[in-house]
């Protein structure tokens, strides 16, 4: 399931990103400009500084928690997820650290109190209790990260950090979709959900009166796509 998601991330990295253009009212008053319209590289406002801190602390915690999960997780699916967390977040952490060094922003050296507490709580759990607690924590963490990355895209002024946020956003959203999907199975919410993407015709919206399914419509679990199903209708943000 996971290489596909990474590949999607890299495709995005390769695409020429159009310039980020923020609201100049929210630039820091001491911003040095590269030209009349563009802040010089690594100029940042308070939002950027905060994003660096929160993303670094969260990223470190993701790797540490995933390593714990690789040690403890009872479910193979969860171990696969944890491997993806280690791989993707290690990569993102390195890129963030490189940017921070270039921008001369000190980063936190360890996880924040919230993640520390989570780590301690998870360390006391085993088996399915661990699996469920870990994946529930992952859902909340990735929900928050999606919102943080979105906020950086329009709220920051450090173009490189904004580009990184834009590149990571679909990857992290993919993690969240996977975590919700795994949780639904582990918790027995929707055991019948197939890992295959929803195929047309979509029966959820309205009763099918027209009966004209497109060719190739039947879902085939054997040909399951590696990607998780499209997000179900359940609300994912508070």
């Amino acid at each position, binding site marked *: 399931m996971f290489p596909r998601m990474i590949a999607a991330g890299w495709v995005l990295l390769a695409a020429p990103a159009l310039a980020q253009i923020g*609201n100049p009212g*929210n*630039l820091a008053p001491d911003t040095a400009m590269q030209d009349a319209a563009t802040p010089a590289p690594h100029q940042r406002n308070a939002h950027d500084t905060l994003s660096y801190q929160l993303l670094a602390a969260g990223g470190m915690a993701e790797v540490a928690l995933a390593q714990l999960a690789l040690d403890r997780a009872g479910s193979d699916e969860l171990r696969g997820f944890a491997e993806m967390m280690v791989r993707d977040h290690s990569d993102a952490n390195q890129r963030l650290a490189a940017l921070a060094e270039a921008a001369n922003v000190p980063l936190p050296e360890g996880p924040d109190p919230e993640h520390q507490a989570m780590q301690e709580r998870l360390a006391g759990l085993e088996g399915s209790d661990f699996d469920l607690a870990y994946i529930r924590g992952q859902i909340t963490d990735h929900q928050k990260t999606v919102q943080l990355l979105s*906020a950086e895209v329009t*709220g920051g002024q450090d173009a490189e950090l904004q580009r990184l946020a834009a590149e990571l956003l679909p990857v992290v959203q993919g993690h969240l979709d996977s975590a919700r999907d795994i949780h639904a199975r582990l918790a027995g919410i929707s055991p019948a959900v197939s890992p295959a*993407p929803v195929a*047309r015709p979509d029966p959820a919206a309205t009763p099918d009166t027209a009966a004209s399914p497109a060719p190739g419509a039947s879902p085939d679990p054997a040909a399951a796509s590696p990607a998780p199903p499209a997000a179900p209708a359940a609300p994912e943000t508070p």
Partner: protein
Amino acid sequence: MPVHRALAPICAALLAGAQPLPAAADPLPPDTTYRPLPVMPPSRARAIDEAQKPAVMARQRELLDSRYDLADRPLPGAMMSGGTKPVQEGVRVRLPDGQDWDSLAAMTPAEIRDGDLLPQGFLPLPHVKQATGGQVFPQNQIDRIAAQEQRDLRRFDVDLDLPDHLTPEFPPPIFLTTQPHLGDVSRGELLTIRNYYEIMNGLVTPVQMEGLRLLLTPFPQEEFNQTEDRKVADPSLGVACLDCHSNFHSNAAFHQTPDVRPQASRFRLDTTSLRGMFNQQIHGSKRSLRSIEDFTEFEQRTAYFNGDHVSATRKGVHLPDRANQVAMMAQMQNIIDFPPAPKLDPFGRLDPTLATEQELAGEAVFMGKGRCAECHNPQTAFMDNQMHDLKLERFYKPGQVHNDMATLPDGPIKTFTLRGIKDSPPYLHDGRLMTLADTVEFFNLVLGTGLSGDEKEALTAYLLTL
């Protein structure tokens, strides 16, 4: 003693339950929900905004050109209801390389998603400057208000991004439910605070007249106000309801949804027409407010479509009196009729003695195979007063950023009326589709209805009769 023994497990349970609480998380940063105060001196912010404007417009034009064919191609014989602007023809959304509409329609949503094959014009359309957002007016509205009211609706940071031929006619005609025998009562003028009395006296009640006056009165707004947090050159009196809803219709001015945060996730809002307000039971793309009174009052309280009463208060919020002002504004809005549709019978169905074969065939598609009428019910003014989730994210990978907008699932959106729909380009809540033919291809793909070429053309011809 027995009591204490009985309490002990409860206390233990409470303690155990309390254990996760000490790790209470820090909230997300405040500017993920609240509008940050600008810190850059306004003269410098404006200079940077003005310097950025060419790049902002070029970036948006590049996105639009990559998604759509924006050419001026009028549909022969099809004019909007005032007779001053032709309807545009043809599908304008560009296809991905190597695909046609039939090949796409034959694929599953997952195949389209995994192959990155969804036509990009079907994706949510970004605001021209997502990070700032706010209301953006078309040049015709800016010019007319400047001439009549000496009020400046021109932003120094952005312009409207769509070409004029893909927007509604201006000024649009006005039809009143109370004066059906008169037809268009606009006299070809744009209603403003200067001329409304002359145009409407004798046509409306005193209550409606007062409502109209308020709907034309400018009040401070997020980008048009007296503070440093504005995008208009001079301190501004603000904007009026009918600055976007020109003559109670739409002039294609756009904004962002008030209902979503953070800023990057706010989707674009194309101004909706107020025609047929009397039949609408829910208001707002996402809020489902239950009366036009609620909508009218709340928009005044939150600086027009920003969902932010905090910022609105700082800029000078208008708090209309519910009984004496809101009710009158609502009563004025509730007498705005749809344009005439002479081929429709009292149930909203085509009169077979007036309609063409193709239009009748289109109605059959609309009611049956195309599944349009399941939400756009003719009997209830081509809507169902519900919100529905089309689940477009089945066809794309959410989270990609286009021009600073995070492309995320829209979730449930209200069903809009289709009466007079030829007058209201662009289409969908965010204006992502330029023509009626685009909407036919969009829904054919999203609903998987498998329409043939003839059926699509018939459906488009039918939509023009509404």
